[in-house]
């Protein structure tokens, strides 16, 4: 019986053996052997297999064109030429054929492309870095929120720095030595954030550069997240403190326009207590400079021994 379903086709074991025997003996020999035998079941099967396979010979084929060999050799020659040309482009000999005019034209195009392309590339790079910085701040914001949940709403403050209310005021430490943003390292230490996310990736101008500034607490006010409302919590490094640390006070611009050095003073990313991130081209919010404590008008009067700021004052330092 011949099955009609394509899913159900299988040769009998005897047929499989007959085909194997034919193949192993070589088909031509198989034909002779099968035809010269008596009419045993095995030879009948081999004959049937051969009759079927012989039908394949009826497949229509054309005799290939005699030019096929020439066409093949021509194609190989073409490929060889193309390959040689590609190689020649990389050998020193190429400039022998190159005219000075061509060289000049290429140089001019390169110069123009560099002149136009370089600033564009720089702007694109700066924008990408600003975005990376904002992403890091977003991580910091989420980490602070998680930390606050786990610590009865308190913001991170490490005892190794003497606590937020003790160290700056009590020890009369200079801002240039006191790492206020060191409190943020608690986030890393307790597994809320990775070390890399506690820095701005845009700044490359020195070891102090690239840190984030952290909110300095107000006098007699608990340092808790829910009490911050929508006010700045973390931002790019405070430029005044940065300049003091690098000993470059004289070059400071007027404080009202002084933006963070992290982004070449084009502006700064600011993380608010509601974990929103804003790119600000000025550090002044509602008349208050986030980089100066209350009552301080410029960098020169920035106290060397800072302390907790006045109530409602917003001051971020690293």
């Amino acid at each position: 019986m011949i099955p009609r379903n394509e899913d159900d086709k299988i040769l009998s074991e005897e047929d499989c053996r007959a085909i194997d025997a034919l193949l192993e003996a070589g088909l031509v020999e198989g034909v002779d052997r099968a035809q010269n035998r008596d009419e045993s079941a095995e030879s009948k099967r081999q004959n049937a297999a051969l009759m079927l396979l012989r039908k394949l010979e009826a497949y229509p084929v054309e005799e290939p064109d005699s030019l096929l060999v020439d066409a093949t050799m021509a194609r190989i020659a073409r490929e060889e030429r193309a390959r040689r040309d590609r190689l020649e482009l990389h050998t020193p000999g190429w400039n022998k054929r190159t005219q000075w005019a061509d060289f000049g034209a290429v140089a001019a195009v390169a110069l123009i492309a560099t002149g136009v392309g370089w600033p564009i590339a720089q702007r694109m790079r700066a924008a990408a870095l600003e975005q990376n910085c904002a992403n890091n701040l977003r991580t910091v914001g989420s980490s602070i929120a998680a930390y606050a949940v786990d610590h009865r709403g308190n913001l991170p403050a490490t005892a190794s720095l003497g606590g937020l209310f003790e160290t700056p005021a009590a020890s009369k430490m200079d801002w240039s030595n006191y790492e206020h943003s060191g409190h943020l390292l608690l986030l890393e230490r307790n597994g809320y954030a990775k070390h890399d996310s506690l820095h701005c990736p845009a700044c490359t101008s020195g070891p102090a550069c690239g840190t984030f500034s952290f909110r300095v607490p107000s006098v007699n006010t608990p340092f808790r997240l829910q009490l911050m409302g929508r006010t700045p919590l973390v931002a790019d490094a405070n430029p005044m403190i940065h300049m003091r640390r690098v000993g470059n006070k004289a070059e400071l611009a007027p404080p009202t326009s002084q933006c963070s050095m992290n982004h070449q003073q084009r502006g700064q990313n600011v993380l608010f207590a509601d974990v929103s991130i804003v790119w600000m081209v000025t550090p002044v919010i509602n008349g208050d400079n986030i980089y100066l404590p209350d009552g301080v008008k410029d960098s020169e009067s920035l106290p060397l021994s800072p302390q907790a700021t006045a109530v409602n004052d917003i001051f971020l330092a690293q």
Partner: protein
Amino acid sequence: MRNDTTMSKVELEGAEISDEQLMIAHQAGDERAFPMLVERYRSNLHRYLQRFLGSAAAADDVFQETFLQIHLSAATFDVTRTLRPWLYTIASNKARDWYRHHKRRATISLDKPIGHGENEFTLLDVVSSTSNQPGESLSAREESARVKKVVDALPELHREILLMAYFQRFSYQHISEMLSIPLGTVKSRLHSAVALFADTWAQTTHETSKDHS
């Protein structure tokens, strides 16, 4: 077979030069060797490719691709081995590439399993049921067209193994090496190919008989 890479040009003109000797001469820089090799396989390989690809134009293209590849890989050819299986392996690979790039022919799905047990059938049944009865002689052209239709409809892998085994007379062992598949798989694939061919042939025969009646 010789491995002598210093074969002279005079020697190359001899009639009994093997494929491998031609490759050695080609590797040694004799420009006459490669065209001789191409000419030697012009008919046989081209026919194989026509049956594989179902078109002479496609066969032309793949034939050239094959020899281009042979030329580019000539340095890697191990002259202690025979050239023919290597050549057909490359040709089959190129044909498969071409085929995949120009998927236009309907084939029977390879995913469908081959059945077992009760659905077994024998070639004797097929041959006896599809033998031409008196007065039903099929014209050569008609039979040719039917064979082409049936072979072209076979799945690529089945068609390939059928052509290698029947037309090229490659042994199971050779096919196993060429296709990089186990010997048992070669056998079962060929059995499936023959079963598919037989079944499709029987079906077309019955359809043709119905049309004639």
